[in-house]
């Protein structure tokens, strides 16, 4: 055995370890990006306010347009939580549904959709990509409306104005 044989192994081992570490970090980083979603939709300034809904796919009931209001819900002090009210208009109906349990993962924004009120039954879900603060592209799917695809453009950063 050449004495030098051991030497390379002494160099290779740290390199290998470093490689493994880098790989692990990369994997962890990837896992973080695509892993467990975080609560909420991020900074309030990025999403709170009122949005015009421009429909790109009208779904089963023929949704023509609508409005989304994102706000901080406060039933009582200490219960603050972001939530949304989505009004989708068909030819004959104002369908109002409620977004709760907001989550984010990278640019992805999701919520469950409640019917009747924020305390009503879960009737669907909301999935969108935040292209930039105040601009969402995605879809809402419910039992009654089917899958409605739309872009959401914020026109006011104040939920009630």
């Amino acid at each position: 055995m050449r004495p030098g044989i051991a030497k390379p192994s002494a160099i290779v081992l740290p390199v290998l370890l470093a490689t493994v570490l880098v790989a692990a970090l990369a994997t962890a980083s990837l896992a973080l990006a695509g892993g467990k979603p975080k609560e909420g939709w991020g900074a309030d300034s990025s999403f709170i306010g009122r949005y015009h809904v421009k429909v790109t796919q009208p779904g089963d009931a023929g949704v023509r347009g609508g409005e989304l209001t994102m706000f901080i819900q406060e039933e009582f002090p200490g219960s603050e939580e972001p939530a949304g009210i989505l009004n989708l208009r068909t030819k004959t109906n104002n369908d109002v549904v409620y977004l709760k349990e907001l989550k984010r993962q990278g640019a992805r924004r999701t919520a469950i959709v409640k019917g009747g009120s924020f305390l009503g039954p879960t009737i669907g879900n909301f999935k969108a990509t935040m292209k930039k603060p105040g601009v969402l592209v995605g879809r809402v799917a419910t039992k009654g409306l089917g899958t409605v695809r739309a872009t959401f453009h914020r026109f006011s950063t104040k939920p009630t104005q």
Partner: protein
Amino acid sequence: MAIRLKILLASLGVLAATVALAACGGGGSSSGASGSTANGPDAASAPETEDWPLFGRDRDNTRFATQDEIDTSNVGELGEAWSTALGPDQYLMESFPLVLNGTVYVTTSTDEVMSIDGKTGHINWTYTPEVDFSQSTGVGGYGITVNRGIAAEDGKLFLLTFDNKLQAISQKTGERLWSSEVEDPATGAYESMAPTAYDGKVYVGVSGSEDGVRGKLAAYDAKTGKEIWTFYTVPKAGTKWVPKGGGGGTIYMPPTIDTETNTVYVGTGNPAPVLVGAKRPGKNLYTDSILALDADTGKLKWYHQEQAHDLWDYDAESPVVLFDAEIDGEEVRGVAEAGKNGLLFLLNAETGEDLFPPVGFVKRDHKPPTTKPTLECPGAVGGSQYSPLAYSPETQAVYVSGIELCMYLKVTYESHNGEKAFAGDRVVPKDTEKSGTFTAVGVDTGKVLWKHDMPTPMDGGATASAGGLVFTGDQQGVLYAFDAASGDDLWQADLKLAFGTAPVIYSIGGTEYVLATVGGAALTASEELGEIGARVIAFKLGGKQLPPGPALK
């Protein structure tokens, strides 16, 4: 922190000082300007019509149908004539329909008005207003929108939308004729009530006591939508007893008009902040009250406060019923209203004074809330919410829908909404009983004639008929027909969707229909009491039989 503690202690001191008033339970009454004399039976109180033309069918708001084809002997043959769904993702149904010339007019919780053929269930037209629902971020963030119906007069239908628009639409075509804003939505006010139309005026209130909205009743010109008069139910915020950001006394149901005396009767809601009384000393007039106003001027004739210095959210929310009774040998014109405090009030319509002591119809055990949770019965959504009474002149009884639902109430003092919040927590214990009552009370005796313990909270009201029946629905979706005199449970149908309204009755071509609008109340959703949706179902003798609900205890 120390400052907060001082404020807290100081507030509790004032709170304690006001407890005596509040703990008395009842309020008081006062005659204002001169009222008219009590009158006899109003021809409008039980008109012979095939329709259901007003919120409570007649001007006295009795919900008593003169039809008698369906009666105690044949109600078992009642079955489904037709059933119509009101749209995709439509939930909750607190809408009380009208029937005009055989056509049903019903609203949805998102303010559409639908014209439906009363014989077939076919939707003739739908009026879909553009409504700003963003204000439902208020009301503690519950986001609940409901619409309790429309009024009609001279070929026009009058609608209040959630964002405070009074709109007139053509009864024939559904075309909008005019629209008028009755309150700035930025105040937190919203609309849920049906208006009342009478003699060229449309009477309108606003909702939102919980958020400190200042209550009012206003009259608008039915032709133009222009305001004629406004009566504010509480002083302006920051004046008299109303703290900055406070208010209350808002209105949730349509007023009732005595056409003989030209008097408008209406009930008002809680004061705000809701659970904290320290910042609003005194009785907090005219919250939680029955008001009698001059229909032409809005001038107060009298008030009767059902809950002085309310600390529990005990609105006088349900609509007022007028009746004529013989008491101690004298003909008396009376007023009935069931409050959220679990008491039925029977008052003299001329003076507002009690005809009898208030009649309890649910469990009552409450004390002023503190910073520690205390169990309060009824809870803040107990007693009788908006549910209209029915009154039968044949049995001389009113029929009361009761909610047995206690709550833990707790006073808090911090809020990110400033003082525009409950200033307290309201929690329904998980193991609490959620049931109801249905009670017949004699208006000429003030006594309970019969009472049913119901399997669910009763939120929707009652309807009586000359067939000797009284109808009501529960949160399981069961429609009941009781013998109005004895209370016997004669018929049931399981409609699978929770009730948030009472039926209406009409006839077409000699066939009597009982129409149920089902889909649940806001309470149905918040307490998970039953299935929610939006559907209109008509029944007639010989229709398709539906399975009954579970037997009553």
